């Protein structure tokens, strides 16, 4: 569990200091003084930038050269703090990664909070702190935001929505429909870490070792790959539904088949053991700091080496190929030399009884 940093109440000069309310009350979403205090004491100091500090109804941004990428995602993870990260890290990194997967350089984020009455301010401050730190690491600015408060019992502590804007250079065309037969599939590291980290704390399972979430912003890694741009056909971050969902979607959108070589899939031993215990398959388990790239075979080795030199791609591996056969489907050569299909899941993966 990550450490919670309390807001520094002694530095506050507000006539009605927040110390009177150690947790969120309905008034914090009412648009009055309490809302202003939340903004002044928690959000602005953490996210500090001139656009945000203008405190206008909307942020005014100069249009960058190139094409715009725009993405939004909502974060409802439980628990809010887990080994390796928090909802705050996910809210920034998730949207940064969605932008990055179209080859965009992420620039600006919005942050919308839905807080439940009674939610401790110290937790909110810790989440906001993690968001600010993640934004600094990713080099993006949080330039606009919103807070609403729902009655006790109508929320799960804290929900966050972030939207993001990025810019794509005109010579970059990364698209899930661009995979072509012969292309090589590369993942940037071990799969299943985030999902099993969440499972291990959410379900009250007591594993002997701590599995940490892989949450990370991948825009730096993507930037290092952009020199290969014409040969970089598809990028996806395999979050919900894991690697299997991303590759099934690519196969469907590009009308190609994809064959994974299971032996080459990087999986941490602890994650594999936890999956075995619960009857789950790592290819369906979510990741929050990994990408899968489909690239022209000409550059596959160079892309792999480039990834492995980056801190978020050290365990990158070539894991499969794109084929003309069985268009729209994902198959795998199993470790023992058999073959199987990896279908799209109907819902989320459930632990099996047997």
């Amino acid at each position, binding site marked *: 569990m990550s450490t919670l940093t309390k807001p520094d109440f002694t530095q506050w000069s507000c006539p009605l200091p927040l110390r009177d309310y150690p947790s969120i009350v309905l008034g914090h979403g009412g648009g009055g003084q309490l809302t202003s205090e939340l903004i002044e004491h928690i959000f602005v100091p953490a996210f500090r930038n001139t656009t945000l500090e203008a405190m206008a109804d909307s942020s005014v941004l100069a249009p960058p050269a190139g094409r715009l990428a725009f993405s939004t995602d909502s974060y409802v993870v439980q628990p809010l703090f887990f080994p390796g990260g928090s909802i705050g890290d996910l809210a920034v990194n998730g949207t940064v990664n969605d932008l990055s997967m179209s080859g965009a350089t992420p620039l600006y984020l919005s942050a919308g909070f839905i807080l439940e009455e009674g939610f401790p301010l110290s937790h909110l401050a810790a989440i906001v702190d993690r968001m600010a730190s993640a934004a600094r690491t990713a080099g993006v600015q949080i330039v606009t935001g919103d807070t609403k408060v729902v009655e006790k019992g109508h929320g799960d502590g804290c929900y966050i929505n972030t939207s993001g804007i990025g810019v794509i250079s005109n010579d970059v065309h990364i698209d899930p429909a661009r995979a072509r037969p012969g292309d090589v599939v590369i993942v940037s590291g071990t799969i299943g870490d985030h999902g099993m980290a969440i499972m291990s704390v959410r379900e009250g399972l007591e594993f002997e070792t701590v599995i940490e979430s892989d949450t990370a912003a991948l825009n730096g890694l993507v930037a290092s790959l952009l020199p290969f741009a014409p040969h970089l056909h598809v990028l996806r971050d395999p979050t919900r539904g894991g690697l299997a969902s991303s590759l099934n979607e690519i196969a469907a959108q590009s009308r190609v088949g994809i064959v994974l070589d299971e032996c080459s899939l990087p999986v941490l031993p602890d994650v594999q053991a936890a999956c075995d215990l619960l009857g789950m398959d790592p290819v369906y388990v979510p990741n929050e700091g990994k990408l899968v790239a489909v690239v022209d075979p000409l550059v596959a080795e160079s892309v792999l080496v480039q990834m492995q030199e980056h801190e978020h791609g050290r365990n990158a591996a070539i894991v499969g190929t794109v084929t003309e056969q069985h268009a729209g489907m994902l198959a795998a050569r199993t470790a023992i030399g058999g073959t199987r299909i990896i279908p799209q899941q*109907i819902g989320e993966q459930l632990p099996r009884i*047997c």
Partner: protein
Amino acid sequence: MKYLDEFRDGELARHLAREIRQTATRQWAIMEVCGGQTHSIVRNGLDRLLEGAVEMIHGPGCPVCVTPLELIDKALAIASQPDVIFCSFGDMLRVPGSTKDLFRVKAEGGDVRVVYSPLDALQIARQNSDRQVVFFGIGFETTAPANAMAVHQAKLQDLSNFSMLVSHVLVPPVIEAIMNSPACRVQAFLAAGHVCSVMGYWQYYPLVERYQVPIVITGFEPLDLLEGIRRTVHLLEAGTPQLENAYERAVSFEGNQTAQKLLSQVFEVADRSWRGIGEIPRSGWKLRDAYRNFDAEHRFSVSEIRTQEPTLCHSGEVLQGNLKPNECPGFGNECTPRHPLGATMVSTEGACAAYYNYGRFVALDSIR
């Protein structure tokens, strides 16, 4: 990983598969009875690896698949009650009853929780003394000891707000039912290793004797399964119907006697309905009268709920290997993994679901 990686060695697996293919002079029809084995076979592509030498018939060993519709309806009725916390293993939540599944009940406000052990449900009962906590106790002999322990503990601790909806089923009676079916194509069985680790394997000698059918106790990792199949094929080729134990590291002749003692204390043998197959005499367990107070069917008076299985579904014949899934009129039409009519389409381990997902794959050979 100790005791796992050793049994997933690709080189050894290919060696075993080669031996099986070389030994088989014809294609043999072998049924694995356990859903866990079906999962491992499909997951590792063993069925395709052995094509031509062995046809694996996926038996009725997935407890999720064989739980009768009527019992699911009872579970849904109980879980919908306002003061109930309904606890279940995860994969039961998606199994459809007549009108909905447990996910729907949860969405409609029911307190449905996924647990990993019946003892977790017991813990929830202790923490919520003002609520009724019900555990959905399904499964074969493998999950039964933990369920028996939960009920036993509840009685010892006088936990009046805990009860169990029991639908335990047993392997030997269903093997018998399959062998008694006039159209039976099964030539040998892989017996479920984990069931045998609890019950021992002495129960299977009479089956081998009566039906002159080889039975090999088999584990779950790829090498375990290949070794079980290898031994079975040798027995079939030699024409010697025998019982062999290919899972010696977990299974003994007597089994786990402590567990068996508890099981016979808590449960008694009863007739059971199997989804898609129908009633099989003496094929399950129910709570003994001494534990009747912990029987959810008794506590929530749901015994009047009566549900007929859909007539379109032929899963019983599929489970016996008499009908290929895609030969069923409902297959892919009224019956799909999203809207399953019967047992075998419900779980990803079911033969119909496996066929739906994998069977339409025409060019699989090209990736060998």
